[in-house]
């Protein structure tokens, strides 16, 4: 066999579906779970790509997992990514995963993708759930009506996956495309045809890239992205003609976008009706019906949601204690002592490694178990299908603060770590809703702030320590909602979107899926510990052992008098001009500066700056803070500037402008609130 003949071909298959339809499971089954992750161009939305071999085609098939979407509008980043991929990359096959237990919604997406001219294969997933609910989907009927292959699957049990692979391969061989799947009525169809003619004649370049019918429909719908593309290709006279036709269509059907959506939905419902057969006379009561009757109940739903959140936190905090202490013993005990015992190393290097790197990074790594367990339970709740319910239940409350229900998921994730919280805002379709949620997510009191609260409250609050720590969480929630309302009423003004989310059926969590999600989320924290925090503690160490007068030596870490002559001392004294009204001295102020790198560093920095070990830190802090100044310090730490990794996430998600806005508003807000508490507390205490 010659070299050319043996050369393998490469085909691209895109996987798309509504959220919670089992898309990731099918992706993993097709690719054997081997995927590499990147970002979509221009945005930080994750792009997952995997492969499988097709011997029949002597080819390698690249499978691209597109974001979970409901339609192909230009309103959300995810939908734009999906449709741009289908149009620009022209995948050989688009596999649409449909939910057999709720076919209408999936059919709407299938029709939208077919209109794009894609070569579609439908994977009809969750057929078992549909059966348990008393009906079955006649996939051959569906195939006949849609004119495309339909493969029934139960992805979690590996049923239908091989058939799906075969269907993909067959579809690669004989490409099918039906752009005129939905008919919008005689009058509108005439207008669409006229627009198609105009576009094809005036700009063949454009209609070679995009299906002309789809362009015409999107222009009629007022899709800003498509209108701007058309404007670039056609002359102003053609554009005027198109606009005239649009006005004509408006006279016929009224609101065109609403009309087109309605027609498509009507067709989806009709196809679903044709393809559904009842197999049980009495519809069986499913677990989902039973659980939803109470978990989304108008009265019980909210206290139950709060209870589940409490249990999430308790699981993470209670069960992580032995693991955290184990890491602490290992790193700050055994490893640190071992490094200190290496007499052949120069003193400065021993100090850098033991007091800087190991002490600093170790102080952070002890939080790894709590974060991993937090995300473990959160992933279980997500897999079960409860997070969607939580958003639904909380929606009414959040709406009072002009926030969408979906904001609750990033805000809760923020209690674990603010970085994945900011990334989780991607699921919010409306741009303003998404921006405001990302801006307030850093106000969620992340687990990195907890050791700071515990240390300070334990040192100065006495019997009120627990109440003081708890108040930080309440304050965090109140502030996030209030600031959200403020942003929504000022710089991000606009209507809040209603709750549009598929409530998936409750499913037993899959351990591999849960572990994968936990790892993906915890990874951010580990990367942060290995990069930003590693660098941060080295900077803290360097600024502690050097000063305006030059190198001070590792003794500075043991002797507060020498430390006051260091750069840290210098910076602390400069900033204490602003913080002295709150009763904080230069050392506690200097520790705040390093909290910008990562909040976890504050405790370690306080230890270094106050010349004490972490064990006796509380005792020393009780002489540095009064209960009032200690409390204002905790409040300041809660609110002031998010850590550098969170700011970097905001920058990559929303741009530099919003990262600057976040940093600025949080510093100003923290200062005002801390000052107010100081003044009012001073008056009350006398």
């Amino acid at each position: 066999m010659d070299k050319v003949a043996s050369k393998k071909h490469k085909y691209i298959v895109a996987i798309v579906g509504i959220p919670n339809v089992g898309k990731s499971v099918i992706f993993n089954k097709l690719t054997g779970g081997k995927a590499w992750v990147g970002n979509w161009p221009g945005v930080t939305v994750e792009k997952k790509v995997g492969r499988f071999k097709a011997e029949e085609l002597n080819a390698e098939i690249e499978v691209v997992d597109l974001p979970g979407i409901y339609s192909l509008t230009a309103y959300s980043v995810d939908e734009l990514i999906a449709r741009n991929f289908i149009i620009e990359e022209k995948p050989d096959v688009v596999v649409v995963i449909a939910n057999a237990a709720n076919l209408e919604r999936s059919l709407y997406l299938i029709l939208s993708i077919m209109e794009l001219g894609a070569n579609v294969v439908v994977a009809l997933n969750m057929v078992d759930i549909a059966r348990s609910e008393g009906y079955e989907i006649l996939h051959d009927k569906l195939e006949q009506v849609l004119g495309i292959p339909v493969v029934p699957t139960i992805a979690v049990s590996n049923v239908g996956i091989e058939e799906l692979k075969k269907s993909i391969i067959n579809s690669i061989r004989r490409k099918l495309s039906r752009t005129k799947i939905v008919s919008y009525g005689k009058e509108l169809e005439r207008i669409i045809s006229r627009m198609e003619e105009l576009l094809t004649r005036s700009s063949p370049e454009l209609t070679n890239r995009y299906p002309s019918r789809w362009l015409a429909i999107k222009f009629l719908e007022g899709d800003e992205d498509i209108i701007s593309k058309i404007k670039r290709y056609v002359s102003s006279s053609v554009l005027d003609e198109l606009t005239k036709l649009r006005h004509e269509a408006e006279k016929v059907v009224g609101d065109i976008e609403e009309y087109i959506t309605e027609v498509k939905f009507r067709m989806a419902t009709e196809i679903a009706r044709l393809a559904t057969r009842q197999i049980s006379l009495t519809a069986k009561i499913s677990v989902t019906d039973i659980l939803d009757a109470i978990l989304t109940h108008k009265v019980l739903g909210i206290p139950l949601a709060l209870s589940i959140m409490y249990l999430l936190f308790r699981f993470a905090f209670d069960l992580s204690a032995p693991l955290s202490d184990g890491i602490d013993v290992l790193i700050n005990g055994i490893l640190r002592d071992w490094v200190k015992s290496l007499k052949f190393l120069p003193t400065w290097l021993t100090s850098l490694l033991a007091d800087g790197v190991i002490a600093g990074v170790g102080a952070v790594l002890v939080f790894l178990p709590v974060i991993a367990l937090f995300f473990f339970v959160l992933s279980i709740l997500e897999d079960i299908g409860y997070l969607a319910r939580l958003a639904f239940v909380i929606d009414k409350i959040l709406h009072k603060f002009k926030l969408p229900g979906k904001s609750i998921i990033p805000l809760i994730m923020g209690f674990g770590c603010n970085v994945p919280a900011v990334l989780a805002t991607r699921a919010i379709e409306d741009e303003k809703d998404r921006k405001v949620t990302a801006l307030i997510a850093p106000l969620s009191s992340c687990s990195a702030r907890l050791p700071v609260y515990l240390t300070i409250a334990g040192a100065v609050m006495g019997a009120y320590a627990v109440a003081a720590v708890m108040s930080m969480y309440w304050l965090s929630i109140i502030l996030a909602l209030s600031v959200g309302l403020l942003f929504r009423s000022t710089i991000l003004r606009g209507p809040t979107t209603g709750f549009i989310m598929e409530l998936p059926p409750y499913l037993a969590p899959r351990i591999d899926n849960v572990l994968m999600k936990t790892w993906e989320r915890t990874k951010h924290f580990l990367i942060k510990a290995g990069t930003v925090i590693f660098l941060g503690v080295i900077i803290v160490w360097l600024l502690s052992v050097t000063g305006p007068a030059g190198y001070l030596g590792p003794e500075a870490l043991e002797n507060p008098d020498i430390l006051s002559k260091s750069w840290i001392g210098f910076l602390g004294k400069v900033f204490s001009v602003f913080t002295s009204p709150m009763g904080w001295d230069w050392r506690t102020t200097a520790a705040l500066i390093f909290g910008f790198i990562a909040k976890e560093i504050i405790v370690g920095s306080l230890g270094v700056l106050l010349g004490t070990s972490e064990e006796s830190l509380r005792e020393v802090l009780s002489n540095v803070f009064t209960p009032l100044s200690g409390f204002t310090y905790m409040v300041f730490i809660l609110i002031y500037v998010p850590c550098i990794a969170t700011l970097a996430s905001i920058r990559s998600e929303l741009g530099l402008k919003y990262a600057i806005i976040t940093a600025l508003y949080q510093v100003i807000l923290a200062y005002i609130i801390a000052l107010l508490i100081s003044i009012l507390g001073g008056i009350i205490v006398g």
Partner: protein
Amino acid sequence: MVRSKSILITASLLAFILGLMYIASGSICIYNWITSSLINGEAVLKQFIPSDPWLGIVMISIGLTYNASAYYLMRGNTVLSIASILVGGGLAIIVMGLQVLATLAFVADRLVINEELRLSVIISNLLRIDEILGYVSLIPFLLGYKFYKEMKS
């Protein structure tokens, strides 16, 4: 069907009684937290009922859900009645299981940091009110589950 109905009535009655106990215990949790953390007073039954406002909210939520079972049964809505027992009971069992795990974690932690492990602390952890009521909650939950199975078939 008559037998099924009697299972539901028994489960619902038990859930109602347990619900009241959960509400009372949850309220004491909150009261204990207020007295011990805010006004430096004396907590009630502190050996059995912790000073934890969040646990108080959880227990009251379970209690309300349990009581909803009787309410819906009286109104003839068996689906909501059974749903209340299953959700309330499920949550009560999760709280109980979590406390067992937390006790195990506590034991492991003492061993890791090489500190004294007192048996009295372990026993009091396992005899907390959320634990005891959790054990009892197994009865209405299993009865409710049995009724649900029969209703489904």
